[in-house]
């Protein structure tokens, strides 16, 4: 691990503005960091075509397993509701609801999960509801995340801001901040309003869809909460809504490994994204997004081909971290150090012989 002080090369203020409407966003545009050309490890076109090929099979298998297990765990929890034995089933249900929905939102949003378009759309809508992310604003937010990955003031999906708010990040594990934030956005959208940040990356022509979906969701939540009140039972809200809190921990656990502690304001995903080897259960829940560097470099490659893509280009990448624990051992001390000095970050070691072979793509 190498620590890089950006102070010599990059002018940074002590407190940066991560909002989409601030000075750092304008500075990023002036410095050519917005919509910039990014490094890509070389892959022969023929091989890349193979890797980009879509298939319905893997995603159908995983979706049947995902939703099937959710139904089974929910039924078991309902049957055992009067005893403590319902807890492990609710816990498992919660992870599939509050964490697996994050990766399904992501992959189906890219349109790469399935070959068949309507299947991507259907899973995307279901996952958006579970993770409480408006299908339209979050699609545009993620588009920007891929254009301007970890560019301060441009990327609306930066979690590890500097100095990091470690208390807030800890609360993400339980959805304490993001569920209320998502619900507030839903109500705001249902009332026909959109925030300035959202408006900065969501075209006005899309706003009607934002409001329509928010109104449908609001109606669903009203029904669920009313059912809980009328029946005098927590069960309805424990099955719809609250799993976004008690089941969120896995998507935060894996999601923090994507970019935390790495560089800001660079145009090489090898310097701001991380690949981490993970166990098969986490890879199922996370839909192989542990190959995150590869995903950012080649977003058209479906989740079920990311491991092959990794094998194809790993000679040109920093070494992958061997486990989730190893990733945390790498970035947690750096994030603590950033509380005192925001210029501290991890500078991944690039394989020098291959640096000149890559290509720059917008």
């Amino acid at each position, binding site marked *: 691990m190498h620590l890089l002080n950006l102070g010599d090369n990059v002018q940074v203020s002590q407190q940066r503005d991560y909002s989409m409407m601030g000075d750092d966003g304008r500075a990023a545009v002036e410095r050519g960091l917005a*919509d910039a050309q990014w490094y890509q490890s070389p892959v022969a076109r023929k091989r*890349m*075509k193979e890797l*980009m*090929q*879509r298939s319905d099979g893997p995603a159908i298998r995983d979706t049947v397993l995902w939703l099937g297990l959710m139904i089974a765990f929910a039924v078991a929890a309902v049957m055992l509701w009067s005893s403590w034995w319902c807890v492990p089933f609710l816990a498992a249900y919660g992870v599939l609801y509050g964490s697996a929905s994050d990766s399904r939102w992501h992959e189906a949003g*890219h*349109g*790469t999960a399935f070959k068949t378009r309507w299947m991507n759309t259907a899973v995307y809508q279901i996952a958006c509801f579970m993770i409480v992310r408006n299908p339209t604003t979050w*699609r*545009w937010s993620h*588009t920007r995340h*891929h*254009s301007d990955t970890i560019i301060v003031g441009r990327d609306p999906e930066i979690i590890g801001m500097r100095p990091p708010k470690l208390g807030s990040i800890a609360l993400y594990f339980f959805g304490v901040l993001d569920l209320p934030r998502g619900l507030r956005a839903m109500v705001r959208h249902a009332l026909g309003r959109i925030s300035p940040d959202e408006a900065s990356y969501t*075209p006005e*022509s*899309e706003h009607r869809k934002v409001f329509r979906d928010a109104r449908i969701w609001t109606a669903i939540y009203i029904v669920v909460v009313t059912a809980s009140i009328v029946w005098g039972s927590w069960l309805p809200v424990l099955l719809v809504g609250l799993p976004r809190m008690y089941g969120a921990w896995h998507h935060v656990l894996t999601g923090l490994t994507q970019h935390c502690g790495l560089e800001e304001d660079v145009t090489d995903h090898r310097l701001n994204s991380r690949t981490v080897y993970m166990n098969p259960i986490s890879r199922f829940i996370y839909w192989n997004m542990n190959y995150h560097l590869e995903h950012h470099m*080649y*977003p*058209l490659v479906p989740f079920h081909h990311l491991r092959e893509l990794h094998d194809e280009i790993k000679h040109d990448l920093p070494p992958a971290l061997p486990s989730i624990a190893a990733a945390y051992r790498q970035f947690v001390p750096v994030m603590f150090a950033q509380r005192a000095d925001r210029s501290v970050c991890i500078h991944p070691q690039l394989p020098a012989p291959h640096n000149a072979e890559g290509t720059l*793509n*917008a």
Partner: protein
Amino acid sequence: MSTWTDMGAADDIEQEDVVGVEIDGRAYAIYRSPDDAYYATDGLCTHQQVRLCDGLVMGNVIECPKHNGRFDYTTGEGRGVPIRENLRTYRAKVVDGRVLVDLG
């Protein structure tokens, strides 16, 4: 007025694939469809100027490699977000094994 420009050998493009060609500093994308017809469009995505020749051809659709924006390359029509502007198309034909494109 037609200005037919040689874009390269027809056989250099696989079926259901795309290649990029640069003429006078301007990028073009040349497609060979699954039914063996040839088409040409501007080479950069209208969303954020990404090279379409690195994208994925599926039937009559080209998908941008960066943000998954989709176009019907036979008409240039954008197919949903994040595409808000259609792609310019050009007439293409094959003569003596060469792809010719009318750059007008």
